[in-house]
């Protein structure tokens, strides 16, 4: 089992979502995140200009079985790419175990439904 953490452009989210669904990844969670980076953006408050390096992105969290890691990465990368600086990153993190709360199933089995595997 691996957890993929993908930081993507907000504008690419819909496409990435579609791509994940076509790649049979049925569930994932996502967050609005703010990060620091090289890019600076001027903000103004009552005549005073100040710099923020606040960059807004979407973070997608998805846990997949080892055999699905590559296809998930490809799906996200293809859909999130614009070619410009700031397209984001995908991190792959090993996951020790998982538990499905409803049934108590552990490991790989807790990630997918038996009937439509």
């Amino acid at each position, binding site marked *: 089992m691996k957890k993929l953490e993908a930081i993507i452009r*907000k*504008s690419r989210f*819909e496409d990435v979502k579609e791509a994940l669904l076509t790649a049979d990844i049925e569930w994932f969670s996502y967050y609005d995140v703010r990060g620091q980076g090289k890019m600076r*953006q*001027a*903000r*103004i408050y009552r005549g005073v200009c100040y710099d923020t390096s*606040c960059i*807004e992105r979407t973070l997608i969290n998805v846990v997949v079985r080892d055999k699905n890691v590559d296809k998930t990465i490809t799906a996200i990368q293809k859909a999130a790419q614009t070619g*410009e600086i700031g397209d984001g990153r995908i991190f792959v993190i090993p996951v020790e175990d998982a538990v499905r709360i409803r049934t108590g199933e552990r490991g790989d089995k807790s990630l997918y439904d038996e009937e439509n595997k």
Partner: protein
Amino acid sequence: MTQTLKKILASLVTAVAIPMATFAQGATQAVTPTINNGNTAWMLMATILVLLMTIPGLALFYGGLVRQKNVLSIIMQCLVCVAVISILWIAFGYSWVFGTGFKESGGLLSFFIGGFDKVFLNGVTPSSLTTPANIPEIVFVLFQCMFAVITPALIIGAFAERIRFSGFLLFTILWSIIVYNPMAHFVWGGGWLQQMGAIDFAGGTVVHINAGVSALIMAIMLGKRSDYKPGKPISPHNITFVFMGAAFLWLGWFGFNAGSGLAADGLDANAFLVTHLATCVAAVTWMIIDWMTNRKPTTVGVCTGAVAGLVAITPAAGSVGVLGAIFIGMITAVVCFCMVAYIKPKMGYDDSLDAFGVHGIGGIIGSILTGVFATKAITGGAQGALYGDWHQLGVQLIATGFAIVYSAVITYILFKIVDKIIGIRVAPREEEEGVDVYEHGESAYC
């Protein structure tokens, strides 16, 4: 001591002066009309209500419908519309629409505008009255000012989330001067449509068709938002705002419609009644369609239905009764729903917040149906096709058709000009990350 003396003196003076003044009035009553306090009080109130429609009404309604990265751009555009157009209106807009300087001289210019005689409200004093309601002309100037303000603000919905502020500003100023002012003159300021007998009680052609059609042209010319796919709506960021905006619009519209008779009388009471009724019917109709087609009645749906009803009853408010209000509300909700739910996705243009689907289409339907449901019981003269008089319907069709063509053509030209001079659309990166930060240096929620 001196204070008391002064007071006694003052009261003595007034005691003498009042009967004298009354006497003087009695003598000249036939010549100089006196101010009607009741009408004036209501018109001051109505003016405030119409301002509430733009800020905060439209700002919240449109602001809630966009994504959070663009909400400030909408609020700014509404806010600046109020400030800039008001200045233009007092500088020369009022004179262009309601001036009479060109009436005698004639010529081509007199066809489009009234004149330059009231530039910077020249000659409009606290004692000048607008007849027959006998309200101060200053109140009339302000009331009409709020109409001039809200009309370009309505277009904001069409190009939301992708327009440059500078481009918007230049476009709006030019649009107000070249599209709104002449149109208002044709219909309200004694122009040819008014002389022909077109009924536009509170602005179906001047405000809603005018703004709605321009919105369509702008949406098409500007192109889709980069992440918009026809048939896949981009979800609103704050439906609570949408509700508050719709509520302010509903509230303000009573000033808009019931104030348009410029008097506190039975005709305005009727305008109030039909405005409320048509809006309720449209809101309920929209809810039912929503329920039937998508299995759920939605908040945004009812808000949109209410606004569509408000738009459609606007030209008709001074000429229809309860029957007309019910039918106008119902028909408008059905047509506007089809427009935004089925026809817009098919056509593929990106009218972000349905300025055309609701204001344009609602205005066109209302304007035409006025020619159907107008009744002698309310107007005292003209009546619609339902009562056997087809002439009014013909006049309404001409006025509607003309408004569509005029605003479409001029908007197209203005877009080309403004796009050439400063460019209207934002850069792709600005559009992606939100125009708030790039255009205004601010962000709404963080």
